[in-house]
C-alpha cells in the first residue's frame, strides 16, 4: 500500500469515528467521556513507548536502532496529539470519577481532587512533550546513541518518564475505583503502554521492505525486546492477581469480581491470550522472529489485546454502559489521526535521512 493510501484511509476512518463521537457526545456526554478516556489511554502508549525506547537505547546502545529509528521517530512525533487528546475526556471530570464528589471519610482526597488532577495532567504534558522533543531532536544519528557526555540526561529522563506515567496511570485508571489500591498496578500499565507502542513500531518495521539481510536481524532483535516486555507485562499482571487472590481482602477482590461479572469478561481472554500466550509461544521459536509475516501478525494481535485490555480496565467501572459502537468510534477517531501523523512522521524522517537506499519506496510499501 502506498503511503498516500494509508493517509487517505486514516482520514476516512477518523472522519467516521469523529462523526460517531459527536453523535454520541450530543446524546450522552458521560458515555462519550468513557469511550474517549479509553481511546486516549490506549493510543498514548505509542509515543510513550517510542520515547522510552530511544532513551533506553541512549544508555544501552544496539545495532537494531538503525532500523528502528524512523519508526520510533514517527511514534514520538505523535506525542503532542496523543498527550493533548485527553482534554475532551477531562472537560467534565464528574462524568468519569466518583471522587469529584467524595463520600465522607475517603482518606485520599488530599491527592484525588480536581485541582491536583489537572496540575498533574499539566505537568505530565510538559514533561512528556519535553522528553519527546529530546528523544526526537537530540544529537543522535542512525544506530548511534546520544554522546556519552549527554547520556545522564537520558537516564534522568527515563526516571521522570517512569514516575510521571505511573502517576498518570493511577490518576486516570486506578482512581476510577477510589477505594482500590494496588502498588504493582502502575508497572502493569507502564508495561502495557510499552507493549502497545512497541507492537506499533515493530509492525512498521516488519511491513517495510528492506534492501539487506541485516535489517532482518534488527527486526529479530526488536522482536526479542517485544517478547521480553510481553513476559514482563504478564508477570506483573499475574502477580497483582496472585497477591490480591491470596490476601482475599474486601477492598481489593471486588475490583476483579466487577470485571469477571461484566459483559467485558471475554476481554480477559483476548488480553491475556493475544497479549501474552500467543506472542510468547510464537516468538519463543527463533525462526519466527525472522519472518516478517509472523512478526507483523503478532504485533497486530498484541495491539488488539491492548485495546481489549484498556476496555477491560476502564469500562466495567462505569455504571451506565457505553454503547459499543461509541467505544469503537472513539478508537477510530483518535486512531485515524494518530495513524495520519505517524505516516507523515515516517515520510518526514525518510526525507531527512542523509544517506543509504530508501526504505520506503512504492515497491517496498
Amino acid at each position, binding site marked *: 500500500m502506498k503511503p498516500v493510501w494509508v493517509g487517505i484511509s486514516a482520514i476516512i476512518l477518523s472522519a467516521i469515528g469523529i462523526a460517531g463521537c459527536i453523535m454520541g457526545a450530543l446524546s450522552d456526554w458521560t458515555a462519550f467521556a468513557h469511550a474517549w478516556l479509553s481511546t486516549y489511554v490506549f493510543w498514548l502508549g505509542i509515543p510513550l513507548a517510542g520515547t522510552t525506547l530511544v532513551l533506553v537505547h541512549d544508555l544501552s546502545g544496539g545495532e537494531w536502532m538503525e532500523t528502528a529509528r524512523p519508526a520510533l521517530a514517527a511514534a514520538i512525533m505523535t506525542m503532542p496529539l496523543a498527550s493533548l487528546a485527553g482534554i475532551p475526556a477531562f472537560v467534565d471530570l464528574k462524568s468519569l470519577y466518583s471522587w469529584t464528589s467524595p463520600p465522607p471519610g475517603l482518606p485520599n482526597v488530599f491527592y484525588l481532587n480536581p485541582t491536583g488532577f489537572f496540575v498533574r495532567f499539566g505537568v505530565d504534558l510538559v514533561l512528556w512533550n519535553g522528553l519527546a522533543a529530546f528523544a526526537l531532536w537530540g544529537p543522535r544519528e542512525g544506530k548511534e546513541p546520544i554522546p556519552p557526555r549527554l547520556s545522564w540526561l537520558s537516564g534522568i529522563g527515563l526516571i521522570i518518564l517512569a514516575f510521571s506515567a505511573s502517576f498518570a496511570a493511577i490518576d486516570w485508571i486506578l482512581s476510577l475505583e477510589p477505594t482500590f489500591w494496588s502498588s504493582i498496578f502502575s508497572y502493569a500499565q507502564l508495561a502495557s503502554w510499552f507493549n502497545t507502542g512497541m507492537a506499533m513500531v515493530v509492525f512498521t518495521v516488519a511491513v517495510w521492505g528492506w534492501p539487506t539481510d541485516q535489517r532482518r536481524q534488527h527486526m529479530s532483535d526488536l522482536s526479542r525486546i517485544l517478547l521480553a516486555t510481553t513476559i514482563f507485562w504478564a508477570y506483573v499482571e*499475574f502477580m497483582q*492477581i*496472585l497477591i490480591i*487472590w*491470596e490476601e*482475599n481482602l474486601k477492598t481489593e477482590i471486588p475490583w476483579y469480581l466487577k470485571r469477571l461479572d461484566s459483559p467485558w469478561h471475554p476481554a480477559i481472554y483476548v488480553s491475556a491470550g493475544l497479549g501474552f500466550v500467543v506472542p510468547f509461544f510464537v516468538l*519463543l521459536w*527463533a525462526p519466527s522472529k525472522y519472518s516478517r509475516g509472523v512478526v507483523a501478525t503478532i504485533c497486530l494481535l498484541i495491539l488488539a489485546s491492548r485495546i481489549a485490555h484498556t476496555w477491560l480496565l476502564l469500562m466495567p467501572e462505569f455504571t451506565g454502559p457505553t454503547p459499543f459502537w461509541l467505544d469503537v468510534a472513539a478508537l477510530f477517531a483518535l486512531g485515524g489521526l494518530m495513524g495520519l501523523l505517524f505516516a507523515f512522521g515516517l515520510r518526514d524522517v525518510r526525507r531527512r535521512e542523509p544517506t543509504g537506499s530508501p526504505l520506503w519506496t512504492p515497491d517496498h510499501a
Partner: protein
Amino acid sequence: MNELFGIVAEFATPQAVRTAAEDLRRAGFRVFEAYTPYPVEGLDRIIHPAPKPVLPLVMFAAAVIGAGWGYWIQFWDEALNYPLNVGGRPFNSWPAFMVGTFEFMLLVTVAAGFFGMLATSGLPRLYHPIFEANAFARASSDRFVICVEAIDSRFDAAAVRALFKRLGADRIEEVPA
C-alpha cells in the same frame, strides 16, 4: 602407514583461518573443525552452517514436562493426598500453584539444557586425538588451527596437504588416530 585422525594446518591470523574454512567448504569438505584462541567472527557459521535444533527442542520438551510435573506435585499434594481448606479457596488453587510450577519448570529445563549440552558436545571426554598435534599447543594462545578429519568422505591426505599449502599454512602435520 598408520591410521590417520586427520590433517592439521596452523595459521597466523583469524582471516587466514576463515579463508581456509571457506575454501574447505567450497572444496566439498564437511568434517573439519577449527581451534582458535578466541571466537573468530563468522567461523562457526562457515563450519556448521545450519545449527541442529536438537537442544532447543529437548529443552522445550523438558519445559513442558517440568511444568506438568511441577503442577502435578502440588495438585496431588493439595487436592488429592492431603486436602486442606485454606480460607475457603478451592483445593486445586491454580493461581497459588503457578509459582511452584514455574520454578519446577525452570529446574527441569535448565537441567535438561545442561546435560543436553554435555551430551551433544560429546562431553565429558578426557582425550582427543588433536592433542597429539604439535600445532595444537599454540591454538589456545596465538595460533589458529584447522583440522580436516579422515572420516570426511572426500578426505585424501595428499590433496588436503596441497590445499593447505596453497592457503599459506605456517605448518602442516598429520595427526595419528
